């Protein structure tokens, strides 16, 4: 049973990831009890650089449509706005366009029209070059300064917008906002902040509810969560009666995907939780007070950029021979040298890289792996990245035949070293991207940072 919305409070229902699926009844029960906003995060850098680099969405169209249709219908029924941020995963223009196409289908199927604002945050390379030239780029967790070449080589650059970038759209009272890359907190906090609620508390509430049901128990995802913003506190409440929030589940949430759980840096400043208090007000709900906000001297947004690193071909096989496993370091070095030698004059050794993932030795952890005893069988994933798909395929093919027949001390099985599960054993895996921009950019006008459009 969800508490009915009270006078003076701002109630948001939040979906942690558009297209991952959520419990539908939670949404209708929340609408029934009264809400002011539906917020949905649609993105993350977690699935890796491919999506930003390629412009592809990382959730299927079918599942995105499933979730979006329910949220659009709920917004229509409740008469409240829906904000979807970081469209399509990376929030670039191509992903925004993809989500807008899905939204059009959804509105047609529901037979409704909605006033839809679009706030884009993909940046032209020239804008970033200009910022770099004017010393307005700050090095962040890469520990490497940004170079003009990084900017030129990025296939797409987006900026995580802050709450203010949603305000020009929100002042026009839209039914739906589709956002480009956004700070995940902004989707939830932009509207209550515009209505005058306390900044530290509102941003903290945004941080807790942005992942949906992760701040409640049981820990499994796939459900929504409610945040109730009031004058001097907020309340976190799961709409699903089988779930509950605890002081621990709510307090612990600021640890998630953050390096400092007490000082949450974001666009425009830092949320300070050092004096925050959590109180269990009933078996299912937690009240939060005392979170503060400190404005930064300069307003910054986080830039994300990805560049094409090459094209991938892989081969997967298993080794069961204990002598092969014991000599695997030497075998790898010999193979790499042999491949280079064999292709002399044909393929430049700088035109490709070979990575050996050795499952059963250190395939998951690499140099962080403390266990030095190999397993009795080892999975070998040979990952070749070449300047062209052809180079990757040819090097990978050579790596496959070479690893099958390579010699090593104590070799008794002279017919072949590796069990390949597939024929063909090589798989071409398409373009590979890498994050090459992860820096902060100073901006002057946070409200007009995004590009506002209205869907026709």
């Amino acid at each position, binding site marked *: 049973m969800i508490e009915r919305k009270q006078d003076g409070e701002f109630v948001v229902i939040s979906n942690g990831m558009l297209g991952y699926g959520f419990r539908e009844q939670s949404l209708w029960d929340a609408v029934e009890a009264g809400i002011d906003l539906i917020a949905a995060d649609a993105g993350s850098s*977690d699935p890796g650089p491919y999506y930003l680099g390629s412009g592809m969405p990382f959730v299927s169209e079918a599942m995105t449509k499933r979730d979006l249709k329910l949220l659009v219908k709920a917004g229509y029924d409740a008469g409240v706005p829906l904000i979807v941020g970081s469209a399509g995963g990376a929030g670039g223009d191509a992903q925004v366009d993809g989500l807008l196409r899905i939204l059009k289908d959804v509105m047609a199927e529901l037979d409704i029209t909605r006033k839809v604002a679009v706030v884009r945050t993909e940046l032209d390379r020239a804008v970033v070059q200009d910022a770099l030239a004017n010393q307005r780029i700050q090095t962040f967790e890469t520990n490497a300064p940004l170079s003009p070449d990084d900017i030129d080589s990025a296939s797409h650059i987006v900026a995580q917008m802050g709450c203010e970038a949603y305000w020009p759209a929100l002042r026009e009272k839209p039914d739906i906002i589709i956002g480009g890359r956004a700070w995940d907190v902004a989707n939830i906090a932009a509207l209550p902040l515009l209505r005058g609620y306390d900044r530290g508390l509102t941003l903290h509430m945004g941080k807790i509810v942005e992942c949906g049901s992760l701040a409640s128990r049981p820990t499994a995802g796939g459900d929504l969560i409610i945040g109730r913003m009031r004058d001097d506190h907020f309340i976190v409440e799961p709409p699903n009666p089988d779930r509950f929030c605890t002081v621990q589940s709510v307090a612990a949430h600021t640890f998630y995907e953050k390096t400092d759980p007490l000082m949450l840096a974001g666009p425009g400043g830092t949320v300070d939780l050092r004096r925050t208090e959590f109180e269990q007000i009933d078996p299912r709900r937690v009240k939060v007070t005392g979170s503060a906000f400190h404005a930064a001297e300069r307003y910054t947004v986080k830039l994300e950029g990805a560049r094409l690193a090459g094209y991938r071909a892989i081969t997967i096989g298993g080794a069961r021979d204990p002598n092969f496993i014991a000599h695997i370091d030497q075998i790898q070095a010999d193979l790499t040298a042999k491949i280079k030698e064999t292709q002399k004059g044909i393929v430049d050794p700088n035109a490709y890289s070979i990575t050996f993932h050795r499952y059963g030795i250190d395939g998951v952890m690499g140099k962080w792996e403390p266990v030095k005893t190999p397993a009795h069988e080892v999975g070998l994933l040979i990952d070749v990245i070449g300047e062209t798909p052809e180079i990757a395929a040819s090097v990978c093919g050579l790596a496959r035949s070479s690893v099958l027949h390579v010699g090593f001390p104590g070799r008794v099985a002279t017919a072949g070293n590796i069990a390949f599960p597939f024929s063909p054993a090589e798989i071409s895996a398409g373009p590979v991207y890498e994050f090459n921009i992860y820096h902060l950019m100073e901006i002057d006008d946070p409200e007009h940072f995004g590009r506002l459009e209205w869907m026709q």
Partner: protein
Amino acid sequence: MKVLSEVAEVIRSKNAGPFVVTFDIFFKDRADFEAVQAAGLLTRQAVCERYNVGDNELLGFEYYPFANAVKFSIQRSVSAGGPRDADAYGAQQHAPLLDMPALR
């Protein structure tokens, strides 16, 4: 002696952005949290040794009483999901913590 998996309720790793993996250890109550802190086995130095990383690669090792938790992060040598990376989400780097000594 007890190892961490016998005392802690949650032991996990995850990306905090593409260039850092962050580690969280939660205890079920203040008593367990304080016992582990007092035992002095789960330390910044012990974690550096366990993960074979230098002190300069380990970020922010702290005990946080408000959440009965310990948190630290490690700088990645390659970025998440890029060439040579083996764990795009950083979600399987927690395992060496499981059998680290926690209580004497």
